[in-house]
């Protein structure tokens, strides 16, 4: 018994100690593929950050830390071109990481609890469009399920990285060494967490799910170049923060939120009835995969 109590004490100390934790991450930049499954789907040539060399993911791994942590992110560039790593509103070193296995470590103290976006900012917007983006999440120092210390409590948490890709004019060209005419951008694939709607509407890490009374914090990151207007069926949500700016209490309640490119928002969606509802971008073409309806930026809200 004593031993068990001792364990709890140790665990508690460890948890409180999280405030001063050191978090080390490694990201590897490589060529890869992103497959959008289902009708209208395709395989896009991408460049991505991955946790392991040779295994890039789009979006990049979500990096989650606690407020006040010491964060070290070492980025290895295995491609034969220059890349960088910038967490918007957090890190400032935008200089390139040398090509062909160069690396660089970014060290910083985790800022205020919230949702941030990281990306490769080089090569106009091409490196980002090719898949080099992800979410950086800062949880409160006490690691509680609140948006920030003293902020609203939630039961569940989802991260939605919204993005889009122009396969014929950007991905096909950049991946084969061509020059992308960046003035023209007509994305034909629209994604949440790197998935078309047919996958994202069945993805447990993306869907909002819960029982009556439960609340989900949705951290929305727009890593694309288009504004995305997200409409939630079933209930309104509370707007907690917009691009890192915490909103005053009581929070406004909307059913549609516009997320400009390279910005973030945090909303809380409460389950107040039972049923199945879609959440989708309300802009015409963003709902599809190369024009195939609902295989675009969409997911589901399952309220039971």
């Amino acid at each position: 018994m004593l031993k068990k109590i001792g364990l709890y004490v140790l665990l508690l100390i460890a948890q409180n100690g999280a405030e001063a934790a050191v978090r080390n991450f490694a990201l590897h930049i490589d060529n890869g593929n992103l497959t959008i499954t289902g009708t209208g789907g395709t395989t896009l040539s991408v460049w991505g950050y991955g946790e392991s060399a040779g295994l890039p993911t789009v979006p990049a791994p979500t990096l989650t830390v606690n407020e006040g942590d010491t964060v070290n992110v070492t980025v290895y560039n295995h491609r034969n071109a220059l890349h960088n790593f910038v967490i918007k509103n957090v890190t400032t070193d935008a200089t390139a990481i040398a090509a062909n296995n160069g690396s660089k470590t970014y060290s910083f103290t985790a800022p205020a609890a919230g949702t941030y976006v990281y990306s490769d900012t080089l090569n106009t917007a091409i490196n980002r469009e090719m898949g080099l983006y992800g979410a950086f999440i800062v949880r409160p120092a006490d690691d509680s399920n609140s948006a920030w210390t003293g902020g609203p409590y939630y039961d569940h948490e989802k991260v939605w990285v919204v993005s889009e890709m122009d396969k014929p004019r950007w991905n096909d060209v950049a991946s084969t060494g061509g020059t992308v005419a960046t003035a023209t951008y007509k994305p034909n694939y629209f994604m949440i967490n790197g998935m078309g709607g047919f996958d994202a509407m069945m993805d447990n890490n993306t869907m909002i799910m819960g029982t009556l009374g439960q609340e989900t914090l949705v951290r929305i990151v727009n890593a694309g170049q288009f504004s995305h207007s997200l409409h939630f069926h079933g209930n309104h949500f509370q707007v907690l923060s917009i691009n890192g700016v915490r909103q005053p209490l009581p929070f406004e309640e909307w059913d549609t939120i516009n997320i400009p490119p390279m910005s973030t928002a945090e909303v809380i969606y409460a389950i107040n009835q039972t049923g199945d509802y879609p959440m989708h971008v309300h802009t015409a073409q963003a709902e599809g995969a190369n024009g195939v309806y609902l295989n675009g930026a969409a997911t589901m809200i399952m309220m039971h």
Partner: protein
Amino acid sequence: MKKLTQTIILAALALGAPCTQAVTINKSLCVGSLSKTLYGSSSTGKSVTFWGYSDCGGGGRMGGMGGTATVPGPIMEIGVNDTLNINFSPMGMMTMESAPYNGHTIHLHGADVQTMEDGVPETNGNMVMGDTYTWTPQVGHEGSYMYHCHVHTVKHLEMGMYSAIIVRPRDSNGAFLNRLNFDIATAYDYSQNYILSTVDPAYHTATGDSPVFADYNPSYFLITGKEGRTTSAPAMTLAAMRSKKVAFRLVGLHSTNASFEIKNSSGVLQPFTVYIRDGRALPVAKTVTSLELSPGQRADVIATLPSTSGTWYPQVTYKKLRANADGTYPAYATAYGKVTF
């Protein structure tokens, strides 16, 4: 349990609000085709085919006259606590798209109704060959909403199957109050519905899962179904008394970025106050000179006219979804309204 508590609180709120006489409002909607001649930036008009909702209260359900379809469709005004029943008969004419996008629904956008009333064919219980849709908005849900077809939305909404539902407060006699909600600060003298929409003619001829729907290139920009390309040919007009208050119901059925502004005849921005967004009163009303409205959003705003006579031009600037390097958005076009006082 939480829901029960919510219900009790809402009931208490309802008691606190002016006693209203709720009524049941029955509407019958059908679907039809129409064409509009649109100009955009050209001096030559182009005929574009639309699909629209029509009021077919005369008995369209059994294949009788389906009313005249319009874009936007009939604007419905209902009171808080009223029950709206929409009897929808889309089959008065030939099927407009092939399976799986045949038929139509009505999605009560923002109403947060039960799944079976939500008009989404991909979720349970939503019929595309005719259905009834019921909604009873509660106290606190005053404001502007929209309805639109949720079958192959990328096509059917673009085709014109949309309009607005305005939820209004009623007084103790059951008459509509000229306020946005029960808050007397939201009183107005005039009200106008600015329904934002955009038109890409290529979307009007493509059908099914066409790659055409991956690329949106709007060339016509509407306010409540009209172009309003210049201040001298406005889409909306209002002749009002000086010093009075004008409510604008902004309903975002467009597919681009947009901003709403009011300029006087010298081009100077005029302030207006946003009281309601997406059918929920803002905890703190905001007075601004420009309001961004993205696809799917609504806002209920009020502007106070000057004490001296003049002309105002409420206007919607439609903008591209892709930002410039400096974060601004290139404009497609501006559609104008006009208020004389």
